[in-house]
């Protein structure tokens, strides 16, 4: 893991090599380094971290979606990178709004991101521009909505338990 100093060095390198305003923030929480960048720079940042960095993070371990309701911007996409030589992990995060949930795709950089991006699109509705085949993976193709967003109703059918039995059909019995 990069420590606080290492993370600051990575952030400084990204600012110098990619863009001055590319990095929004860098946090170290629970021993995990996380770099938040602006969505439009994500391709350049990951390209730098993969190819040009002194200690390259050449492996995308995983990619997640996240909904930060009620914070704005609500949607987030996390890229968990791994340096396989030093066994160091670095998180890169981008945030985007529900109204314009568009993030450039990095499938050209990390091929393994393909299906994980499709899953994030399926569950959170993040649109990855430039993705070769952005279809749903889990839900039916004609499903409406993105069910892992936190304002999406959980669905299912009401079940009577002891805490809500007074609302049910047996309350007069």
């Amino acid at each position: 893991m990069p420590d606080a100093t290492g993370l600051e060095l990575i952030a400084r390198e990204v600012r110098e090599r990619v863009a001055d305003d590319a990095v929004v923030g860098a946090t170290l929480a629970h021993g995990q380094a996380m770099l938040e960048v602006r969505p439009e720079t994500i391709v350049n940042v990951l390209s730098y971290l993969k190819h040009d960095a002194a200690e390259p993070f050449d492996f995308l371990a995983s990619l997640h979606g996240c909904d930060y309701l009620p914070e704005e911007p609500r949607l987030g996409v996390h890229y968990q990178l791994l340096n396989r030589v030093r066994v160091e992990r670095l998180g890169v995060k981008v945030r985007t709004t529900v109204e314009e949930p568009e993030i450039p795709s990095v499938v050209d950089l990390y091929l393994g991101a393909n299906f994980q991006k499709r899953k994030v699109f399926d569950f959170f509705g993040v649109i990855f521009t430039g993705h070769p085949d952005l279809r749903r993976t889990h839900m039916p193709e004609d499903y409406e909505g993105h069910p892992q967003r936190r304002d999406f109703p959980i669905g299912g059918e009401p079940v009577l338990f002891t805490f809500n039995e007074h609302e049910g059909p047996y309350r007069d019995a």
Partner: protein
Amino acid sequence: MEITRSGNGAPGDFRASQLRARQMLRGDIEDTELEEYVQSRLLVTTFEKAQSWARSNALFPLGFGLACCAIEMITTLAGPRSDLSRFGAEVTRASPRQADLLILSGRISVKMAPVIRRIYDQMLEPKWVISMGACASSAGMFNNYALVAGADKFLPVDVFVPGCPPRPEALNYAVIKLQDKIQGHPDMGWRQRYGAEGTEEVA
């Protein structure tokens, strides 16, 4: 149809009946004696009853699993402890054309439901469905947007088995209940109510 055995099952009984049959074939038994012999050796029933008796004792489950209950189903079908071949229902078939029992073993997602319905339609009549476990019967603990709460929303179910997962004995009992149903009440009218008659996909 019930088969009762006469005699006390002593070791000599079998030998005695064999000798009696030999006498009959030789033509040594005549008139009222022959009449009595024939009555004691024949079983009389209707064709429908004999047919449903045969069907109920030769159920062919489809080799089809949905989730964790499928593991339990496999051990119940083929495991030595609760061997379903005792009830004639252990021959799993890999093709819906050859199977006549569909065991829904696990949660049914909204994406899987049309697939299951198609498999059900591909099975030839007569066919029966067992909904195994809480998930297949009512979505169970996964009561959310992704699942169909209850398999009977899209196909007719004969027996619901509670449990998460059900004990092997429970699935055995469900098969025995289904056999009772096939023998005693082959059709209680619900297939018409579900519109489940003549839905086979044959082409």
